[in-house]
């Protein structure tokens, strides 16, 4: 069971949260000008990183707020939790195990 720290509520079990995938994917600034390939990219394509990854979570069974986290997708270790609009923390340096 993952322990996840909601920036508003603190540490809770994984079961209270839902996953939102890659973080910081902005809505296209010029939607009217996008071609099919760019729309497809925006809608269907997300990073699928092996290693440290910036991702979104929502505290579904708690305050229902969205927030961001940095997690390692192999070890499940979390390096940071931060609110939307907060300065984006640096990625941890990969430690070779």
């Amino acid at each position, binding site marked *: 069971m*993952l322990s996840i720290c909601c920036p508003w509520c603190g540490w809770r079990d994984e079961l209270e949260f839902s996953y939102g995938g890659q973080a910081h994917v902005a809505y296209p600034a010029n939607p009217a000008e996008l071609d*099919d390939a760019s729309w497809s990219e925006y809608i269907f*394509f997300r990073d*699928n990183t092996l290693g440290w990854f910036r991702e979104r979570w929502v505290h579904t069974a708690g305050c229902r707020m969205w927030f961001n986290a940095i997690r390692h*997708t*192999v070890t*499940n270790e979390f390096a940071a939790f931060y609110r939307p609009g907060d300065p984006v923390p640096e990625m941890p340096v990969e430690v070779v195990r």
Partner: protein
Amino acid sequence: MNEPERLPNLPEFLWADAEPKSAYDVIIIGGGGHGLATAYYLAKNHGITNVAVLERGWLGGGNMARNTTIIRSNYLWDESAAIYEHSLKLWEGLEDDLGCEVLFSQRGVLNLAHNLGDVREAKRRVNANQLNGVDAEWLTTEEVRKLVPILNASDDVRYPVWGATFQPRAGIAKHDWVAWGYARGAHAMGVDIVQGCEVLDFVTDGNRVVGVETNRGRINAGRTALCAAGHSSGLAAKLGVRLPVQSHPLQALVSELLDQVLDTVVMSNTVHVYVSQAHKGELVMGAGIDSYIGYGQRGSFPVIEHQMAAAIELFPIFARAHVLRTWAGIVDVCPDASPIVGHLPLDNAFINCGWGTGGFKATPGVGWVYADTIAHDRPHELGEPFALTRFEHGSLIDEHGAAAVAH
């Protein structure tokens, strides 16, 4: 149906591990079921035998020998029904074709319905299946009770059984034997199977892929075909190609060996578990993916807890069984829960991935289709709808109902 079946003997010789040569006509990356079946059909159907299957770990050590082995073809859309039914027909002749047993057992698969939404979705799927020549039927609660006496189909449960879809030709097989059978067949026709050989990068010449860099040196290739399941997006990224897949842990578990009590496969999307009893007697169970991206080949505990609760609700007699082992694989899931089969946007490079939670059943079918695509450098008619370009055209094949939870 009480005696556990005795396992037949494996053939005496399976395959010999090869040292990689400096060049091949075709390099297949990934020695799971799909890679091995592709090599087999390249040799058998197209006479292309100067082929290497490069596997970074050991043969079948990925999802191939971690899955719960459910085989069926009752998918909703025409495109899916066509490729999965082609695969099921190949399963029906596979032991003869390979000349060895894979314990393919057509014991039928039930998909339970627990509410009105389930019933409507299920009946719609049965109708679609029948129009596509797939042997699907709708069973009433009474018929389900007769088929699976140990199932708690009474009214006084939280999620009563309102009926089920049934595909009698569906079933299970022994996954590691399937991998070994294909490896044996491919090797006998001249294919090199190279274990402990990880593809680290690609060699390109303009828009052409001409070889791979591995931990055992450079190997040139006329054509290069990815078959790396959960690791596909990392490999494609090295070619500058982004794939619309997300890799998730998917878990399974088995009990100790028990007397035979269940002679069909039972799946429930709503209470969320699926279970069969393997030939030796262990109960094999699985459920959904962990929701987040994960490459650790181990899943989270709540998923196990949830599926055990579901299993005991459906089968009260399982309450005294013990969990013997749990494990996970890494499955690559597409936004429409359908696979990607066909060309990469490069010359001489091909992609097969995105089979997610349900690609074991497709092993013979996709091996057949992908080999044909590689041999002729053009899409096979069964693979064409599953091209990577469908995400740009919007021609998605939404199998969430038939595939996302079920396997």
